């Protein structure tokens, strides 16, 4: 009797509504990030087609719970529904920003990325920060005096020597979870006045500086130009 009258009641099935809204929401959030190009702040561009396909499947799947909207609910709102709102809300409310100086640690020092080969050509002007970092770890001695032209964001270390700053970049293999930082110190008289996270192009030659009693490679800059954040803020091995 009770079960029957419950079945007849046309009540909203909250679990079905939540499933439809969350699936469609995540799909639209992902497609919007793909359309605006900010998806590559999170993952390697290689996987964008895969994520796009996933978002389209989610959008199709969002239709399925609609049939249950006015059916007596067999399930209630569960922890899965609430927890999947977290990526949805974070993706919508917080503006898309790539990893920057805020996440950079002083200990992030020219990590050698597995599988990354040192550049074989000697056209050092064309090397990016990752190629420089790899080359320096392999044959650092041969590179003194070579010309440099690299792009990255400004990273001001807590105990930066006066007249220097670091130009830094993140290297992503798959997604932001495996990010590694690469950086090079830059000798530049106005270095201290640069704000962290400002994107710059640094031109100069490779030299060395003394830090904590060690000699480490550094860029002796002849020009530091402010630029807009590049379309691809990360480097990929």
């Amino acid at each position, binding site marked *: *009797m*009770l079960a029957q*009258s*419950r079945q007849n*009641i046309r*009540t*909203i*099935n*909250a679990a079905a*509504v*939540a499933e439809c809204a969350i*699936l469609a929401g995540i799909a639209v959030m*992902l497609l919007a990030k793909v359309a605006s190009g900010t*998806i590559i*702040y*999170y*993952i390697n561009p290689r*996987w964008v087609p*895969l*994520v796009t396909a*996933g978002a389209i*499947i*989610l959008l199709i*799947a969002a239709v*399925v*719970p609609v049939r249950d909207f006015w059916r007596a609910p*067999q*399930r209630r*709102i*569960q*922890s*899965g*529904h609430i*927890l*999947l709102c*977290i*990526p949805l809300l*974070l993706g*919508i*409310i*917080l503006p898309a*920003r*790539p*990893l*920057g100086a*805020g*996440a950079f*640690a002083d*200990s992030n020092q020219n*990590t050698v*990325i*597995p*599988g990354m080969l040192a550049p074989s050509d000697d056209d050092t002007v064309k090397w990016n920060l990752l190629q420089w970092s790899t080359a320096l770890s392999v044959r650092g001695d041969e590179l003194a005096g070579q010309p440099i032209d690299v792009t990255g964001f400004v990273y001001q270390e807590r105990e930066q020597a006066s007249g220097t700053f670091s130009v830094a970049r993140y290297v992503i293999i*798959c*997604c*932001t*979870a*495996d*990010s*590694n930082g690469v950086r090079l110190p830059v000798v530049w008289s106005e270095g201290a006045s640069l704000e962290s996270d400002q994107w710059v192009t640094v031109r100069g030659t490779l030299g060395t500086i003394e830090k904590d009693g060690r000699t480490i490679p550094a860029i002796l800059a002849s020009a530091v130009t402010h630029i807009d954040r590049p379309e691809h803020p990360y480097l990929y091995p």
Partner: protein
Amino acid sequence: MRSQSLVFASRHTAWLKLFIAIGIMLALVSIGLFLLWADATRFSMLDAWTQTVTAIFLGIFIEALPFLLAGVVVSSIIHQFLTVEQIQRICPRSPILAAGAGALLGLLFPVCECGSIPAARQLIAKGAPVPMGIAFVLAAPVVNPIVIISTWVAFAGRPDIVLARVGLSALIAVVIGLVLGTHPHPERLMASSLPADTDHDHAPTCSHDGHHDHDAGNDQPVTFIGRAWSVLQHAITELFEMGRYLVVGGLIAAILQTAIPKAALLSIGQGPLTSVLVLMTLAVLLSICSTVDAFVALSFMGTFQFGAVLAFLVFGPMIDIKSVLMLGTTFSRRTVALITVLSFLMVLLVGVVTNIYL
């Protein structure tokens, strides 16, 4: 009278819940819009830590989502179109063959740990050999096409890692299956609550299982469209059940990555033994679905020794907080403890040996 008021009450609470949910959503969206309108640059002042955690968490989530989707769709198709009996009909009786077959069954049954336990539970309840069930539970979360592909994708250019992960998982699963399979009374290894036929059993700790059984009941759709619809419905349910482990695991991973300075991690993780212990502990704490854990393991590659990362990749899918709870629905507590200790020791050994000799 009584039924009338109950109906009103349930109707009332359903609406109330809906309104609360909509209210919270609207409040959050309007806060976001207000902040955007008030001062667009204010967000750049937002604590750098929050920004970083969000960027890393969304990176893990977005990267893993297609694999999770593929996992739940394929496992739902198999759930809908294949019966356990069909698989059981061809399962071997000799313990070694049964354990071996169990370890490889995941290749046909691509489920992560949340799916392998209910499946093994059904297999064993319907008379499959115990070594097969145990080997399947432990190996299937790794020895299956989707996890192999996602590991391959995560560690692009390192096929040795994929091979080591799959080979070791299968080997350890077979050994544990055989060790426990020699028990003179295999039925004592099982949980006392394990029924002879699980068709109408709804395990309280595993709603997943309950849903499986519901679908396998009398209302089996016959038309193709009806079946395809059921597959999608099952896939959505599974997506939300698995998705929560992905969200919680991803959040913990992102917070750990930013909260613990890399230098501190390095200082714990440097020794050949301690590095393995640290990452095995982390694998348990993170409780990440094996479909996606390769991406998390990848982030440890620079900081930890290879043996430790390998231990994370092999141990995580076998044992973590949620899988221990779920194993308790099938096996007795002693068996669960034995499985946990045996796999812990074997993975630890392999990790340390790899660190020292490779």
